């Protein structure tokens, strides 16, 4: 098996959400289901100076996160029916909807909110890395749509060789599932000027 994964560059992403909407268009998801979420992470403070101007440490960056197709996927590990599975050839985590009973164990255990429960269908839904496209030799839709080329997809070892192995920056939690994700950092993350600990997700309703 060759494990595939995503690279995401926080320095390039402008938070435009094209990747999210392209995914919705292609997979016909409607407004309530997101396979890819764009977190607006921001923070910082302002201090008025003696001359009546402002000093600031304000910062922001975006994270575009879908399923990370983990090596140790909580959704697969906790699925009682075997509906959630890792593809033998690509390692992409996907769901057999016919076997899904809608118990939502995957929804409750994934640290990345990747599987969501579809009330209409009564089953979980998630990003499968556009598995069928990948088998056709094509990229996932989100990757080829990014106006700023902030997303890449490929064998995870190649991505790690090219970009390193950072896979966690705020607001993502410490990884527990061996995610196949590589994150490119940015000035906001790398510079000592900005205190990431005082940041927060500013768009909670957009990342349901």
């Amino acid at each position, binding site marked *: 098996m060759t494990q595939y994964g995503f690279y995401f560059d926080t320095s390039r992403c402008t938070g435009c959400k094209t990747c999210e909407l392209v995914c919705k268009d292609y997979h016909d998801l409607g407004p309530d289901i997101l396979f890819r979420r764009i977190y607006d992470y921001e923070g910082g403070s302002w201090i008025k100076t003696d001359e009546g101007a402002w000093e600031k440490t304000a*910062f922001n960056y975006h994270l575009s996160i879908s399923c990370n197709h983990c090596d140790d996927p909580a959704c697969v590990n906790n699925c009682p029916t075997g509906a959630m599975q890792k593809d033998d050839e690509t390692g992409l985590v996907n769901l*057999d909807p016919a076997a899904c009973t809608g118990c939502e164990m995957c929804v409750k255990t994934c640290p990345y909110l990747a599987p969501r429960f579809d009330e209409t269908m009564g089953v979980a839904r998630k990003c499968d890395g556009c598995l069928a496209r990948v088998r056709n030799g094509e990229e996932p839709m989100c990757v080829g749509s990014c106006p700023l080329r902030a997303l890449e997809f490929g064998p995870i070892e190649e991505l790690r060789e090219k970009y390193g192995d950072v896979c966690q920056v705020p607001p993502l939690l410490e990884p527990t599932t061996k995610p196949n994700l590589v994150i490119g950092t940015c000035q906001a993350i790398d510079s000592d000027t900005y205190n990431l600990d005082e940041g927060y997700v500013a768009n909670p309703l957009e990342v349901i």
Partner: protein
Amino acid sequence: MSNAQGNAISRRSFVKNTAVATLAATAAAGGASSLFGCAPKQVEEQQTTATGQVVANEIPEEGKIVWQSCCHCGFTACPIKCHVIDGTVRWIDNDTDGDPEFGGVAFRPCLKARSIRKWINSPERLKYPMKRVGKRGSGEFERISWDEALDIIAEKWQYTLDTYGPEAFYVCATGTRNYPIQRLMNLTGGYLGTYGSESNGQINQAATYLLGMDPVTFDCGGGLGSTTSAIKDADCGVFFGCGSGESRMCGMGEVYEAAKAREAGIPLAFIDYRLGEGSSGNPDEWFPIYPGTDAALASAIAYVIISEGKHDKEFLGKYAVGFDADTMPEGAPANSSYMDYIMGTGYDMIPKTPQWAAPICGLPSERIEYLAHFIADADTCYITQGYGPQRHHNGEWSAMAIAALAVITGNIGRPGTCPGLNGKGMQLEFDGGMWNSVPIGTNPVKKQISISGRFNAIDHGPEMTALTDNVKGGDKLNVGIKLMFLYEAGSFGNSSSDLNWAATILEDESKCEFIVGSDVIMSTSLPYCDIILPDLMYQERMNFVSTVTGGSAYGFVFGRPVQEPQFECRLSYDWCADLAERLGLRDEFTEGKTWEEWMKIRYEEESRPSAPHGNAPSFEEGLEMGFWRDPEPAEPIIAMDRFVADPVANPRTTPSGKIELYSEQLATIRDTWTFANGDRDVVRPVPSYFPEIEGVADVNDTYPLLFATWKAKNQFHSRYQVIEELQQACQHCLWINPIDAEPRGIQNGDELRVFNDRGEVRIMARVTARIMPGVVGMPHAHRRQMENGVDVGANANTLTSHHWSPISKNCPSTGSTLVQAEKA
């Protein structure tokens, strides 16, 4: 994936066996060598739940490829590759044959274009002609036939012509597009014209006085400078008020050019009241200033540069007048040069030191000095501005003061420079624009008003004069606007300022007596119409559009219909021809040509010859291709390059033929005009700062917050707002700094009431350090929705002021507005 593989034939495949067969054959013929070395090529997959429901993340069929464009946003126009199945668009792709690497040319549209199928077939689209039955603004209409609608319009047309003459006719169309209705009006005597646009009215005029235009190429017209791609040859770049991460956000837009420069190691500085998306992840680039204070900052930067003797004396001597006493025009008063203003030896006698500017614009003086050195110490600095700084009461002066920085540092007319103006879009010509059109002919009415003056002209047209309202082409208006066409004019009810006031003017049927709207989806403007006509979607007709880019590529979209016309929607050219017939002008209107024939003529005569490498396809070849991307690399367009190369052979349109840091024309305007805002309308002949109305100088206890707007990521002039997915993805919020939110008890997500004496909106709070303390703002043009006098849709222009600018008479519609905000 065993189940899915076992289910490889989809429901649709059963229905459409032929399509599957074709695709399977294609896959086999193509060899299907996999990029990723995986399984053999699948045609499509289908997933169903245990109860047999189709899970929609199937792989859709390829379908038939039809190229179209998303062309609403004004400054970029993107090709979209539509996959059409069963006669309608199933999914959208982008220019998949371009160069996918960072820096390469591939047309990748933004989220709006990618959601377009939900727009094309929105349940809210207009379906039939309608006649108003309630009072204006009530939104009560009844369905009528096309014949009845056109009969009514023809009768009112003739009545208005006979009673008031052609000056009483007016067309409000989004942007600067030409429309068939203008062609018809020109055939019946013309219509009251407009100059400028809501987007760029102030910079348009400011650039004319300071830099002039090239009389041959018209460069700097519209306040447009070099393409943003020019920055690749600069040592650094300075962007005043550029929200290109929101407004020019596609994969060939300005935001991409800036990102390429950043990664090439070219340092960038963004001067703005908010940390825009163009600098996401790169907050060191942000230099925050209060809205409406760009000229104060620019003057202080100039002060540092001149004090340190770092201005380009050779450039100023050769190309400009009015910098100092040596180059002042004859007869100009002593101590009235640009340098006198900056150094405090003339005008208000205040040296424009960084310490003077710091409390005005909110940027510490050492940061101002840093910016001055950033600009002056570089061999080449790319200096540009968005349309935000000039969309203010004092916007003409912000625009000029920024451009003056390029002048005094000689960063003009050579590679890597922009004369401080807006980033020019790169495009092929199409009847003078980028959109398809029939030729509209010549307007026999020569009078023009500013685009912001249209409500004034409806309300009290005959009181408007050249010296009070900048009426051009005549001393005054003889009649107000009596018959108006709103063509795709979401902007009329959205990007005009002070909408509550505007609504009272439209509601009065004695003022504008007859209003016709033509559109595709009910907009904020249409409830004020007497007749509504349902148009075709752009994607339902032959739709020729030049791509518009930040300067790295040329392209052209030969759009063909993605589906049959729906309901009773009609091509505007066709119903205009039927209306022309009722006015006895069908033959003159059509010249015997169909829309398609006009497209061919306009393309072959205008667009094809304008391709810089002479390699654009023929009309027929283009239709076959659907989308043409110029394979030749595009070179940046450098504004004023001809002038700088030879100022004698290529003078500017200014009276001196040079750059005018002192403008005698402005001095004359100052001395002869009467100004609507009295002493608050300041006119000086040099680039300078004055405090705008409802700006930093007017902040008070009742209305303590400066209000500003930017372009939404997910709609334009409320177009596409019906797409639920886009609204979910980018929720409409008021940005407010934690320093302002805390004493008001406001937390992220709270519902707010935001108000001033003009109106009140309800909107969700976004508490964020990305906006300056003392400033609140929201994306503009969210659809207005009135409930009990409160705009619960939260359109910014329910709040904005009509304090129009001294010279171009353009309304702010993005600033010059004070508000209060509190929890609802």
